[in-house]
């Protein structure tokens, strides 16, 4: 089922993921290993994965990588991020399908697989297998950041689900404030407290 709500949330999350990808590239990591990232962009992907669905999450993730590379990156950085993103979203989708893992588990698997995918891409692009040397460190960093991102994502998902259920799709309804204002105006008309336009000397 395609609803406006889904489209709105997907678009919002794509935008958030893109901004997060950009912010992430600005944060320096004080570790001498290439490729270590916080993975905050993955937060938005996990939110889509849990609230909307698997295929939408795949689309949002691929869109994020392509658009971020087009706006802020180059072909080189695109190759690295697309290989990481494809492997990570693949594994996250499979784990989500089993319905046996929470946000934290899926986020950890996604983080680790993102780094594994990037290492594989690096081996092919740089033509050297020696880069695999960094793989253990990258896997551990993927686990640590994955846990943090997963916990944050689960908090976000809880509040978004609450808002989702509170969301009244009937846009013709008034908010309590608008209702009060209108009632007050009606009361004033009834009591004759208003002045007619013709009484005012312009």
């Amino acid at each position: 089922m395609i609803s406006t709500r889904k489209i709105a949330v997907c678009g919002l999350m794509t935008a958030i993921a893109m901004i997060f990808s950009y912010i992430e590239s600005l944060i320096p990591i004080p570790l001498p290993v290439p490729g270590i990232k916080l993975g905050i962009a993955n937060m938005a992907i996990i939110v889509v994965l849990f609230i909307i669905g698997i295929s939408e999450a795949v689309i949002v993730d691929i869109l994020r990588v392509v658009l971020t590379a087009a706006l802020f990156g180059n072909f080189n950085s695109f190759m690295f991020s697309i290989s990481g993103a494809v492997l990570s979203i693949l594994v996250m989708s499979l784990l989500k399908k089993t319905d046996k893992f929470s946000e934290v588990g899926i986020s950890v698997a996604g983080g680790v697989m993102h780094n594994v995918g990037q290492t594989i891409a690096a081996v092919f692009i740089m033509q050297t297998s020696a880069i695999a040397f960094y793989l253990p460190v990258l896997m551990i960093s993927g686990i640590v950041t994955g846990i943090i991102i997963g916990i944050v994502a689960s908090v976000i998902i809880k509040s978004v689900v609450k808002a989702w259920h509170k969301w009244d799709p009937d846009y013709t309804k008034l908010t309590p404030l608008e209702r009060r204002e209108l009632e007050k105006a009606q009361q004033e008309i009834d009591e004759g407290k208003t002045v007619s336009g013709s009484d005012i000397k312009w």
Partner: protein
Amino acid sequence: MIAMMCYNIKIGESMAEDMNKRRMDGALIIILMIAALIAALAVYLTHDKGSTAVVKVDGSVLYEFSLSEDVGLTVDGYMGGTNRIVIQDGKVSVTEADCPDALCVKTGSISRAGETIVCLPHRVVVEIKGTGSIDNDALDSVVR
């Protein structure tokens, strides 16, 4: 209101399921940690003391130095940009680079076989090779 109540009931029902999921998460994290440890062991056991430093730019080998000699040179990377590579006391390091993140400089010095200094923006790789072994990389570059 009804939607909220349904949501709350659903939370109550899924409590046990949540505990189960948490246990599965823990198992997954432990499995991945073991995998990382195995990878680390594999990396550190298969690589011994290095003998030569190989400098590659964009996949092709430009220089090869023995670690016993002291060398200082500046390498031109892919799409311009330079990295200054220094070999001293059997250790290789990149002392200066004009890449934006300068990760290659932050990597510090390397001396063990299999260790690398990588500069992704300039596609420069400094790699340490082990003693006397013909490895696949060398053969690959011949075939290409």
